[in-house]
């Protein structure tokens, strides 16, 4: 009977099983008639059961959720995102390193969607990954799966960051006067972070250094007499948290904002405050800020109503002007005065610009002459003399 052992045809005796004759071993894919090789990705095997890679990935996602102590519902969501992404053509055939990052991205997206303050720095350190690689995978995951990822919640981040500080319980390494009440510190830090976000210090910047700087100022202001001598670096060391490099700059910017606020208050102008002494009055400034905010909102509403009224009056006058040719522009003058007042109020309400506009580093760009001005159409003839500057002389070539 004819039989086959792998790719080799054989004639085998049916009674004793001896090989009577052997065929040639096939050497090319086209010669093989039996037992053609089928790759795993073309077989039905991968649809019938989960691949080891997917199982490993799911386990990694679950481990990450356990390490971060996330609720159970987060784990389910993250795993479902991972399964969806794994089946997507953009992520199916990528490297194992990228698949690991994909798992981290799914956890990150889940946390963001539930307002859980997980930063990219934290997840990158857990995955031992570079932030740029993580960023690429995160952005492509967001795009391919069409996920809506809300912004990082600063309020939650403040609470999480402060809970990692070790300044709320008396310990041997921490002097008694440096220990602080957690609730008070959280409240004051939140107020300072809110102030920073309203004064252009948060937009476009990493959030963690701002929170560190705000926490330091809040801590100092709660007992300034004993804490003013402590620096930001010492504070982070005492608290047992790393000091992010931009925190010094954020601290400087926050103090400048506070000094500007103090300059607007008559009873503080007398003190001629500087960056050290303004810390003692942070509590008053923040309270006044809340009061000022409410006042500003009331003023804005009043101004809007006034503007609406004036617009209505102007419309009525325009109608009158159409009927009568000569009329005094009394209301126009009044509105001009009103505009002047509004401008001065707006200048008081809006004295703040983003720091990079106040201290511009870049030179302003000079406008290049437009095509019409320079008279270039793209089709002008090019003379030989113009081209000679781009070609070497024969002597130069010989020298080379």
């Amino acid at each position, binding site marked *: 009977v004819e039989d086959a052992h792998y790719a080799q045809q054989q004639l085998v005796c049916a009674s004793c099983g001896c090989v009577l004759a052997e065929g040639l071993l096939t050497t090319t894919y086209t010669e093989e008639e039996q037992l053609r090789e089928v790759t795993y990705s073309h077989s039905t095997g991968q649809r019938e059961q989960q691949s080891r890679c997917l199982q490993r990935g799911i386990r990694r996602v679950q481990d990450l959720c356990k390490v971060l102590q996330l609720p159970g519902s987060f784990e389910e969501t993250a795993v479902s995102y991972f399964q969806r992404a794994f089946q997507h053509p953009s992520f199916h055939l990528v490297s194992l390193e990228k698949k690991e990052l994909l798992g981290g991205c799914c956890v990150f997206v889940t946390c963001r969607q539930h307002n859980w303050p997980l930063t990219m720095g934290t997840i990158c350190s857990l995955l031992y990954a570079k932030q740029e690689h993580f960023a690429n995978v995160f952005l492509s995951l967001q795009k391919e799966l069409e996920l809506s990822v809300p*912004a990082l919640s600063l309020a939650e981040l403040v609470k999480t960051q402060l809970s990692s500080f070790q300044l709320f319980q008396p310990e041997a390494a921490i002097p008694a006067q440096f220990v602080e009440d957690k609730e008070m510190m959280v409240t004051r830090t939140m107020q300072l972070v809110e102030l920073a976000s309203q004064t252009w210090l948060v937009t476009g910047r*990493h959030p963690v250094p701002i929170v560190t700087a705000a926490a330091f100022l809040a801590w100092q202001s709660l007992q300034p007499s004993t804490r003013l001598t402590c620096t930001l670096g010492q504070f982070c060391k005492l608290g047992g948290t790393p000091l992010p490099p931009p925190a010094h700059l954020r601290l400087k910017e926050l103090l400048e904002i506070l000094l500007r606020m103090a300059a607007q208050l008559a009873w503080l102008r007398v003190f001629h405050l500087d960056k050290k002494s303004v810390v003692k009055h942070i509590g008053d400034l923040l309270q006044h800020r809340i009061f000022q905010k409410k006042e500003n909102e009331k003023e804005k509403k009043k101004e809007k109503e006034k503007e609406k009224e004036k617009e209505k009056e102007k419309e009525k006058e325009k109608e009158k002007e159409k009927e009568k040719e000569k009329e005094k522009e009394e209301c126009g003058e009044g509105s001009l005065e009103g505009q002047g007042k509004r401008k001065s109020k707006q200048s008081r309400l809006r004295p703040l610009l983003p720091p*990079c506009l106040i201290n511009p580093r870049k030179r302003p760009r000079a406008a290049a002459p437009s*095509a019409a001005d320079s008279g*270039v159409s*793209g089709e002008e003839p090019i003379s030989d003399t113009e081209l000679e500057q*781009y070609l070497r002389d024969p002597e130069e070539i010989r020298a080379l």
Partner: protein
Amino acid sequence: MDADSDVALDILITNVVCVFKTRCHLNLRKIALEGANVIYKRDVGKVLMKLRKPRITATIWSSGKVICTGATSEEEAKFGARRLARSLQKLGFQVIFTDFKVVNVLAVCNMPFEIRLPEFTKNNRPHASYEPELHPAVCYRIKTLRATLQIFSTGSITVTGPNVKAVASAVEQIYPFVFESRK
């Protein structure tokens, strides 16, 4: 300030990238020897040639494909590309200037107001993407124009698109959205 009133915005074109083909094989070693203002990158197999007027940098491959960058208008890019092709002709190659195409235009525009990026992102999902941990600007993509805008809180906007018209249309399209989220 009314978004509908005519506002003259200066769109400054900072870079135009174009490509063309010479339809002949180019000996990079010869170009490096006989051409002036030339850098030969042997490891990657290309030659960089810089023209002074217009201020353009050309990347030349031996296959005859050339990429020109640094021009400040489409016309200037074409003029520079033709100048380069003529220089290669002078060096002795049978160059035919074909398949010229402007591939990318980079422009900068300044809005006369600051922009609240978190508010802008919230109002313009899913086109807008804002990750302050990664980049300080909002990335806004307009699929129909194949244009990408980077919107900064200072009001500065960087636009990249396939041509100058697309860039101008992109700025026109984004203005009302950005105006809504102004400070």
